[in-house]
């Protein structure tokens, strides 16, 4: 598979169409946070985690934990493209006989490393994986995507404190900062700012990027490979619903599936990006 950045940009847009089709078929789910996440996830998984069907159980593999579990349609789309699950299975999302649970479950799908969806918990699990790598003297890295609403959870700040204490420079956290949550804009519901200053003061390496700029994402992840004794935090500014004009809104498309007409309109816009 071509993992050049232009090819991955195109792949991310193709996976946006997968996300719309999945959510329309399921009749429920979270388009806004899946579409804000997909560019980040594409670069992380194909150029850094390097997930394949063959390495999904390798003890030395890089790990990826989706702490903001409601973005799981994006993860399933990536796993299908990586050959871990069949592409046609995507449309079974959320159905009773499907492996594709509405939020990640590690017992159901290969390469889903942890069960998440109750916010705040995935980062602690990722931290434990990074601690284990350290204990075993292994080189693998642990990547974890958290959400901005999720960052209001106390457990996130517990993990921010302790990952710095344990000097986990093999832990790379990416914040999908899409500025929206169910009840409203994040800065109104429970403002995180000044966020970069807060995280730096917790003794993390902090970078701030445009989370839809594939080159910026890749450069930040390259930078985060440094082993300087501090864990890495990438604040990725994103747009909720990115790629579908009428879904680009902080709250309206957080947890609502497109109906037939909306899905058709979204796919038309996305397919225009692919020609």
């Amino acid at each position, binding site marked *: 598979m071509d993992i050049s950045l232009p090819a991955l940009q195109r792949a991310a847009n193709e996976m946006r169409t997968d996300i719309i089709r999945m959510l329309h078929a399921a009749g429920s789910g979270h388009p806004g946070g899946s579409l804000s996440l997909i560019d980040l996830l594409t670069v992380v998984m194909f150029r850094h985690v390097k997930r394949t069907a063959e390495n999904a159980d390798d*003890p030395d593999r890089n*790990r990826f934990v989706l702490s903001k579990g409601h973005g799981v349609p994006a993860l399933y789309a990536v796993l299908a493209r990586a050959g871990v699950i069949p592409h046609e299975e995507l449309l079974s999302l959320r159905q009773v006989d499907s492996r594709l649970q509405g939020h990640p*479950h*590690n*017992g159901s799908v290969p390469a889903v*490393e*942890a*069960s*998440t*969806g*109750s916010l*705040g*918990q*995935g*980062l*602690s*699990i*990722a*931290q*434990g*994986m*990074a*601690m*284990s*790598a350290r*204990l*075993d003297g292994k080189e693998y890295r642990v990547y974890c995507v958290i959400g901005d609403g999720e960052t209001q959870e*106390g*457990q996130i700040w*517990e*993990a921010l*404190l*302790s990952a710095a*204490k*344990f000097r986990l420079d093999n832990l790379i956290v990416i914040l999908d900062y899409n500025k929206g949550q169910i009840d409203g804009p994040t800065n109104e519901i429970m403002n995180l700012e000044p966020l970069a200053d807060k995280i730096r003061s917790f003794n993390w390496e902090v970078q701030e990027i445009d989370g839809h700029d594939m080159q910026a994402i890749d450069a930040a992840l390259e930078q985060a490979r440094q082993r300087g004794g501090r864990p890495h935090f990438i604040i990725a500014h994103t747009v909720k619903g990115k790629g579908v004009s009428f879904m680009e809104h902080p709250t309206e498309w957080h947890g609502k599936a497109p109906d037939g007409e909306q899905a058709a309109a979204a796919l038309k816009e996305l397919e225009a990006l692919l020609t």
Partner: protein
Amino acid sequence: MAKATRVSFGEELAELGATHPNLVVFDADLSKSTQSQLFAAKYPERFFEMGIQEHNMIGAAAGMALSGKTPFICSFSTFVVGRFEVIRMSVGYTSARVTIVGTHCGVAIGEDGYSQMALEDIALMRTLPNMAIIQPADDRETRAAVRFLADYDQPAFLRLTRQGVEDVHDDSYRFAFGKADLLREGNDAVIFATGGVVRNSLTAAELLAQKGLNIRVVNIHTIAPLDIDTVVQAAKETGRVITVEDHSVIGGLGGAVAEVLGEHHPTRMKRIGMHTYGRSGTPGDLYRHYGLDAEGIRKQVEEFLHKG
């Protein structure tokens, strides 16, 4: 000699460090109380002091388990099981082989009072379909349970006492996970007891024997999965069932036995345990206050049996 099961745990865990290189231990600023300090002193590289962060400790241990380690996480039972939603997701639903060690269970912790007493922990943990729950009654049983859990590959909860408990087993004892442990024969009634009140229940049965009542005493060290066959058989053979625990009568051993008998063999029952929040006092005074000392158990069993 009376010995706290937390001490037996700490000693055994430190010994297992030698034979179990994947064993890792976490604590949340209570290692001197939980006795995980004994492991920490011998294997500092495999001991993780998490500070007062129980949520994060549970999750980090789950991440370690998913990476091939065998984590034991230690705190006062109410502080760790109180973070139940993280246990539910990050350990239970994740099927992470984490052993959650909750010490300082029950009112017998004494003077510190209710805020430090776990009285609801068994009830919460019983709702998780894959969570094993073990509450040992003395030193030998605790050591055997810890050895078992070091090789167990599923989520587990080990509930331990702050207070010393007298031995109820001798060197011939063999712990069998999921199998009830008959301590005393008798057919007038059966007491199912667990943890630090097993010794008191045996003494109560001895006091009742002086009045001509032959009470069977069964130690339920494994509360989940419960030994349903033994519970039902004892109910059939005795016709009267009493449960004794230092825990709420709702959802604990009493609840578990009532559920089983309600489905398989409805039997008149008396649940001895906590019906209220706890309070401060010496452990001895509290057991007398709540009827969990041998005399209190004797009295309640006798009243129950005389009701016919």
